């Protein structure tokens, strides 16, 4: 039976709010023990999809199963297998961190002593011990998010839903959250996370589903998705713009593709399919006496993923093919 292998199985999930088909036939298959990313812009239907799989919303159509258990008919079983961390912290603002964890622990059937021990253990694991007795009103966004995740882990569920776990967090806290998610998977949990950031899905997820206007528009590993949107770009700014002709010649020679000088003189953008070749290029620049003011690599953005896959962009400023992305973006959108 393959369904026991699957932590999450969704077939044609539909949710309609009034005239808006928020989720319009979503299929997902998440293997147990993996991190699965659901990537999409605001309003794409990510949260609604998760809510249905986490038994918070009843689907208007389709079937959802968690470890083979139907999310509607066997909702209570599903609830014994999942932990849910929402986009907005789902903890009691008026209570302290350890009161929150104690109450959730008691609700999950732990004895008073067990609940207290579990709470202390989780607070220590999430670096919240010192803040344990403080009211949550004084918590930072990152601390709240951590407490929220800690609350989802009390019962050590085999499947954890994380709805935009790092939206609104500063880069350092985001990195900590990523580490936490990785260590969860190391203990055998399956994680289904939603995100707006390609970068995040790329860092964490084994497989990614791209979702837009309630439909899965692409599915695959991060590499497969990125391959579908093209390669990263190397962006160079020359110290002396008069050398750009020579620089373009070297790029063509080393990369085998044409670089594009941008209207802002002195800047060159070149598609970079093989990062190793950058070393060669830089050595050639040194030999030719070409000096650089700036050097950066631009990855394909979520915008580009959407543009390529759905044919419409999320925002208008940057998209398209690397070689001449400004012109191309307009063409693709048209």
């Amino acid at each position: 039976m393959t369904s026991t292998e699957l932590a999450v199985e969704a077939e044609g999930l539909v949710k309609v709010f009034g005239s808006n088909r928020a989720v319009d036939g979503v299929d997902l298959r998440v293997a147990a023990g993996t991190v699965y990313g659901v990537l999409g812009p605001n309003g794409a239907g990510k949260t609604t999809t998760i809510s249905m799989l986490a038994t918070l919303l009843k689907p208007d159509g389709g079937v959802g199963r968690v470890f083979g258990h139907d999310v509607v008919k066997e909702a209570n079983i599903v609830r014994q297998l999942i932990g849910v961390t929402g986009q907005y912290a789902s903890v009691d603002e008026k209570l302290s961190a350890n009161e929150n964890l104690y109450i959730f622990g008691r609700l999950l059937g732990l004895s008073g002593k067990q609940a207290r021990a579990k709470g202390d253990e989780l607070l220590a694991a999430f670096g919240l011990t010192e803040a344990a007795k403080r009211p949550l009103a004084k918590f930072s966004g990152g601390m709240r998010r951590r407490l929220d995740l800690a609350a989802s882990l009390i019962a050590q569920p085999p499947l954890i839903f994380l709805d935009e776990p790092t939206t609104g967090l500063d880069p350092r806290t985001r990195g900590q959250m990523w580490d936490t998610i990785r260590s969860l998977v190391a203990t055998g949990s399956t994680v289904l996370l939603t995100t707006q950031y390609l970068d995040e899905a790329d860092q964490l997820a084994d497989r990614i589903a791209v979702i837009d206007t309630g439909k899965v528009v692409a599915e695959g590993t991060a590499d497969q998705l990125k391959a579908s949107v093209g390669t990263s770009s190397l962006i160079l700014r020359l110290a002396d713009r008069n050398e750009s002709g020579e620089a373009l010649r070297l790029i063509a020679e080393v990369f085998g593709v044409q670089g594009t000088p941008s209207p802002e003189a002195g800047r060159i953008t070149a598609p970079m399919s093989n990062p190793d070749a950058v070393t060669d290029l830089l050595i050639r620049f040194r030999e030719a006496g070409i000096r650089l003011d700036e050097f950066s690599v631009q990855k394909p953005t979520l915008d580009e993923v959407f543009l390529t896959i759905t044919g419409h962009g999320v925002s208008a400023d940057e998209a398209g093919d690397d070689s001449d992305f400004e012109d191309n973006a307009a063409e693709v959108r048209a």
Partner: protein
Amino acid sequence: MTTISSTRIVPASERKLKNHTSVRQTFSNSLTMAYRGLVKFRRTPEQFFDVTLQPILFTVMFTFLFGGAVTGTHGDISGYLPTIIPGVLAQTVITASVVTGVQLREDMDKGVFDRFRSLPIARIAPLAGALTADTLRYAIATTITFLTGLVIGWRPEGGFLGLVLAGLLIIAVAWAISWIFAFFGVIARTASSVQGISFMVLFPLTFLSNAYVPTATMPNWLRWFADVNPVSHVITAMRNIVAAQPVGADVWWTLLGAAVLVLVFAPLTVRAYMRKA
């Protein structure tokens, strides 16, 4: 920074799972939710004003304001106390039951409610817990009203036992009435609208009764309403209990009314609530 315990997660296939919650679990979940309510009260003492300061204020204020007029004396309140203390008590405790609905609405709008819904707990527990925790508020209001009355000279003939019985009666009634407000709490869109609707119901119900003045002084149509008003029955019943008088039919009418309220509003509330929970 994070080191999550290295114990392996028990795979889904090796877990003992059941798709229903037992009565015992429902009971235990509800008690935990009631405990949560109490911790919240402790954290926000200002929510206790309506059952701590307000009973003192109302008891003293109404007693000295109406006392002379009702007894036809110049400020001698001793004859008015047996009338007004149960009246103020009924009004205070019944008013306190509005909070059940307001807080339920606030709770349901918060993120934490989503977590409760994602836990394998009895669906009814947050509602049952809230209603249970509130009985403590009624008990506090009752005790403080009685104490205030005793301080300003009230000496009920029924003694301590009478006070306890009357207190239990009004707490039971307030609990029954809180189902009405819990229902508003579940169906209303905002907490402030719950408050609005509830007070529109409460003011006529509590003031248009025999709480402060004898119904004989009212015009006929109002007197008719005040006499059938269930609040009047509970007040009369309490007056008789604390005065060690025969209680008569009022207690039964009161208990019947409370039972009817629960029988009507509990299923309505639970149904509306489960649809959202």
